[in-house]
């Protein structure tokens, strides 16, 4: 009976795992979700003493992972931009998946921010009494608006569900929403550009922390532009990586090779541009910005361990230049294993960059009497973030099962059957 109901919601002509296997897949994620919900409840009820953050470590695991998922979630806006504005029509094959990924990343980030800021009943204060001189105000407004745009972009994907589209009014709404999707793609690009930039900018303006402080253009420090560029570079890689993971989980091809090629090529060029600008920025910071603040740059790396010079090398060369080269050479990009490894390295690179700016910036001493401060998150911090990961996996799994995330799936399955 339940199986029949389940099947009635699955699009015709698509093969999905049996319902009981789907439930087995969901079970561990649901458990993780429950544990995370408990941790979130504790933090909201009692406050942040459940975490290991303090007045020195105001940004911990949550902000680091927030910045990371927002950077990776850029795959949504950038894929939309490439498809609707740059007319890369082959990306229609992954746009629905990119929208779901973006929605997961942004809604998860907003949720964790709400827990981190606390007092959710007073969240409206941020909007009603904005401090427009704060980069965080811009981030808050842009993320909220973009989340709204992502929810709107998710509606047509949802309305294409087999049961929902059987109702003419639903399908007509979906059809008309598609007609104005270019507007949402452009708005999403604008919002993403500014909040990715502002997230970088808020580190670049930290005058009291010479490790993060950067010079820039007018009111924007260089980190503003580098965060935008790195997110644009990692976004397509993340879409390619998740598509590949979905293919592995589903055990079938979901998109044509040309989709991977386009995503890889775009990601490669942007990554190369990012590595070039990041290198220039780092050289400028080492030779001018940091010394002018009274800190020779080598002082920041004296502590070794997790914060040694290897981090700088790994961020720029190993996880920047190497994946860019792998993604740009057509022969290497054509090999799926190499392409996916390069995409994963690009995603790791942006993750390391966000780690450096949030965790390393706060760990390094800024006063003569300060010492290196280490921080390890509490279980509540891990569990709360686990909630977001579990929620993301669940939403994506449900979307994959009951919606058409990959429009080429049926065609590729038929081509496979023909063989």
């Amino acid at each position: 009976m339940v199986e029949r109901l389940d099947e009635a919601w699955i699009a015709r002509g698509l093969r999905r795992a049996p319902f009981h296997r789907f439930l087995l897949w969901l079970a561990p994620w649901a458990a993780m979700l429950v544990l995370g919900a408990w941790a979130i409840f504790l933090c909201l009820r009692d406050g942040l003493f459940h975490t290991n953050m303090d007045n020195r470590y105001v940004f911990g695991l949550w902000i680091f992972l927030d910045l990371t998922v927002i950077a990776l979630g850029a795959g949504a806006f950038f894929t939309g931009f490439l498809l609707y504005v740059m007319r890369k029509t082959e990306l229609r094959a992954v746009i629905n998946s990119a929208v779901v990924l973006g929605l997961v990343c942004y809604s998860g980030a907003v949720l964790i921010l709400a827990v981190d800021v606390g007092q959710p009943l007073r969240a409206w204060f941020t909007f009603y009494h904005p401090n427009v001189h704060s980069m965080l105000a811009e981030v808050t407004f842009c993320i909220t608006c973009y989340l709204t745009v992502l929810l709107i972009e998710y509606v047509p994907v949802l309305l294409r569900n087999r049961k929902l589209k059987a109702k003419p009014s639903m399908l007509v709404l979906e059809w008309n929403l598609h007609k104005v999707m270019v507007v949402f793609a452009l708005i999403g690009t604008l919002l993403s550009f500014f909040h990715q930039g502002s997230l970088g900018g808020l580190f670049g303006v930290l005058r009291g922390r010479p490790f993060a402080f950067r010079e820039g253009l007018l009111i924007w420090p260089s980190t503003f532009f580098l965060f935008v560029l790195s997110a644009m570079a990692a976004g397509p890689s993340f879409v390619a990586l998740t598509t590949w993971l979905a293919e592995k989980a589903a055990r079938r091809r979901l998109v044509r090779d040309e989709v991977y090629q386009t995503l890889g090529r775009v990601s490669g060029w942007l990554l190369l541009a990012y590595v070039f600008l990041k290198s220039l920025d780092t050289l400028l910071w080492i030779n001018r910005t940091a010394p002018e603040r009274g800190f020779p740059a080598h002082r920041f790396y004296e502590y070794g361990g997790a914060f040694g010079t290897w981090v700088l090398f790994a961020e720029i060369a190993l996880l920047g230049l190497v994946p860019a080269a792998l993604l740009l050479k057509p022969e290497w990009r054509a090999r799926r294993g190499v392409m996916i490894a390069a995409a994963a390295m690009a995603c790791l690179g942006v993750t390391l960059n966000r780690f450096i700016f949030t965790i390393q910036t706060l760990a390094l001493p800024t006063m003569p009497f300060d010492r290196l401060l280490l921080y390890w998150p509490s279980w509540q911090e891990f569990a709360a973030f686990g909630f977001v990961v579990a929620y993301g996996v669940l939403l994506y799994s449900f979307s994959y099962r009951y919606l058409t995330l990959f429009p080429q799936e049926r065609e590729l399955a038929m081509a496979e059957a023909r063989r």
Partner: protein
Amino acid sequence: MFPWVYGFEWSPGYLIFLGVFYTVALVVAGAMVFAVWRSFRTVQRGAAGEVMWHAAFEDLTPAERACRHAVMGELPGRVCDNGFDCRGCRMHLRLLYAGGPDGAYGVPEAVEICGLRLPLDRYYHRGHTWVRHEEDGSLVVGLDELGRRLAGEPGAVEMPPAGMALRVNEPAFRVRRNGVEARILSPVDGTVLGPAEGEGLIRVRPAEGFSTVHLLRGGEVKAWMQHELERLQLALSAACGAASLADGGAVPEDLGRRLGGREYDTACGLAFLDV
């Protein structure tokens, strides 16, 4: 946020920041309202069926959207971008006047493929319905042999009521069987007169300017049905594994009984272009 709210300043920073925010909010809200309003208007003027067909057509794979001339081998690889409505297709009209598809309509013969008998005294629609002119000027619409074998017993097909206006490629019938529901598209523009006798399902009074240009005929029918059987078999294999449409080279009389629930659902949806 507003001039009367504590903290607001008439400074360039506030005006630029809030100006951009309100512009974005207005554009997003405006686009949403526009989409909802257009949807409301579309439903109100009865054009929902047309949109539904375009959406369904978009969901077909390029191979399923093969142009009738590609199926015939005249234009290999050509994909239809007119929603199977050749009335507005220049290429089709050009080929038609150049003596393209065999216009052997009216010849009381039939072709047979995999046990499916397809009389050539009628026009065929790609959603597995047919149309035949009657002497009194009306039309008879029915399911072709594959459609009939999928639908099974006549009671499984829900007929449109007399007086209902039909439009090409918009829902006309509905099949309900084995817990599966699929809509069947109308092959013609016209008004339902009532149930038909014999092999047809309904009688239709054709609309003004009635045309059969978009319907398959004569020599096209066999090639098309061959293409359809291959397409359905492939789709069934892709979606349900080893399910087979034809048994010993012939399509069984009652496909609904032969195919399992999921296979039947897939076959119905794909045959009636309701994916």
